């Protein structure tokens, strides 16, 4: 039974990191009604910005954690103003095509700037090393990831339930025309929400940088994982993203321990099972064609 504790902590760590990414995808879908295929690429961009600031420029980790996600958000504002605004009124296929193209552009730009090699970022000294927890050594950085995940979870809950900005975002998600009729500048809201989703992806990227390897393929891996999460949890649902992320984290944490040879397939099997019995996801409703 000694393996249970670490497996549980690993699951939680993976689950909360995945939640930070997937919830951004869900928020953007809720308000803009588009699935941002480039969301994983923005996460990768966050990790590479972090890598540039920490490993190349030698700045402290905390500065990178504050500034790199802002850089990603600025890129997102540019994407929204220069590209997405042409297709907001069009068929949903066009937004899928355009964000897919943006994913190609970002991942190939990163590949041609930084190369395809694996890069590494080291955690700050205070988070380096291990502590003894539940009888086995556990990296401090993983506890930091769990803490960050919980802070973001609480912050998002507060934002959507207790603040005016959050209420405006929810109003725009429910009925954009009505919100506009009530003097809400929905254009600003749309751009802001897209940038906010990208900021979350960027935060996820910087947090993930010291624990996962940094390479141009990391974006496509996380976007597939995010899709699995929103399919399991239910598209557009905030609690769904949390449940889906924790389930996928558990699949990695426990599946990797007990069925290592099927570790890569288990997430897809989990997704297929949910699709068979509850096609709209555990918390989802009304997405039937």
């Amino acid at each position, binding site marked *: 039974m000694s393996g249970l504790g670490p497996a549980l902590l690993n699951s939680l760590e993976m689950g909360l990191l995945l939640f930070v990414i997937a919830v951004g995808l869900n928020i953007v879908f809720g308000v803009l009604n588009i699935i941002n295929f480039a969301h994983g690429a923005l996460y990768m961009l966050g990790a590479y910005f972090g890598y540039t600031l920490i490993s190349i420029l030698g700045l402290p980790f905390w500065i990178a954690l504050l500034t790199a996600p802002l850089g990603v958000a600025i890129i997102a504002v540019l994407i929204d103003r220069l590209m997405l605004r042409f297709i907001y009124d069009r068929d949903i296929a066009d937004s899928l095509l355009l964000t897919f193209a943006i994913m190609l552009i970002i991942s190939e730009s990163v590949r041609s700037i930084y190369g395809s090699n694996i890069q590494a970022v080291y955690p700050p000294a205070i988070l380096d090393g291990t502590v003894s927890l539940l009888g086995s050594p556990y990296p401090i950085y993983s506890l930091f990831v769990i803490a960050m995940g919980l802070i973001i979870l609480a912050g998002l809950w507060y934002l959507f339930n207790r603040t005016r900005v959050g209420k405006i975002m929810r109003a725009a998600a429910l009925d954009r025309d009505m919100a506009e009729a009530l003097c809400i500048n929905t254009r600003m809201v749309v751009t802001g929400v897209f940038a906010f989703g990208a900021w979350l992806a960027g935060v996820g990227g910087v947090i993930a940088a010291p624990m996962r390897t940094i390479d141009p393929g990391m974006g496509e891996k996380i976007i597939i994982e995010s899709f699995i999460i929103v399919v399991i949890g239910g598209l557009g649902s905030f609690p769904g993203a949390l449940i889906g992320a924790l389930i996928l984290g558990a699949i990695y944490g426990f599946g990797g321990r007990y069925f290592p040879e099927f570790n890569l397939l288990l997430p897809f099997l989990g997704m297929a099972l949910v*699709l068979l019995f509850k096609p709209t996801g555990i918390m989802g409703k009304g*997405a039937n064609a």
Partner: protein
Amino acid sequence: MKQNILTGVLLAVIALLVALPWFAPYFYIFVFTEILILGLFAVSFNLIFGFTGMLSFGHAAYFGMGAYTTAMLLLHLDWPLLYTLVAAMALSGLLALVIGFFCVRLSEVYFAMLTLAFGMMVFTIAHSWRDVTNGSDGIAGFRISEFGLGLDLVMGNPAVYYHVTLAIVVIAALVLYVISRSSFGLILKAIRQNPERVAFCGLNVRSYRLASFVIAGIFAGLAGALMAPFLRVASPELMHWSLSAEPVLMSILGGTGYFMGPFVGAALFVLLETWITSYTGAWMLFLGIVLALMVMFFRKGVLGTFLDWWMNKND
């Protein structure tokens, strides 16, 4: 009248393609073999996108399945090429049936996400199941000993392989064209325009979507099966999402509204690729930029824009 002109142009193009090895430089035999194979791949994709209105980002899975089937049958069992093509179509269709079962149940947004996710699942299997697929190295070292049907063709000769590809692609395209013009094809078009209305008419939208998905998978498998002997290798890259992006771009480039659009797109794509990769390695970056610009400003594609203008022009 205009229809007849178009048919005439098409027949002239096919005649030129048949005669190509006798007048074009050797290099262009390879370029046009690739155009034909990717053109078939793109046309099969457009059956689900342009006709049925479902955007798949995982179409390379069936292309790769076809490639692996042919490569492994040639390597291990030394089958005649024609038989391996039939087997590749059958297995790709089966794979499309299993994956399609999950993907066609929900809305378009889900369809796009699920096809990408399942496509990457197939890629992951091909990449990690080293005992069978030989991992990232792929299946290589096979050769075609005979074509089948008792035909005595020197398959190692690129010009002969080009003609075989041309014949098979023309036949496959004809079959797909007949399907798209049949009452079945019309129902697919109706589903793209208004699925609720089609359901109200008493038709099972989900079955039609699945049928369209499987047919597209079968012909993508055929294209992949022709690709493996051409490249002399079947590797996991043939299943990667960046290869799934190619038929998407080709269809958009040529125009999704016309049957021949993706073929025109494939020709432009391969010629551009040949030209641009001689200057820079960032071909995929260029691909993304072109796709974004086409979607934003030029949604009907090259052939679509031209034909819409020409067909509506007063004589």
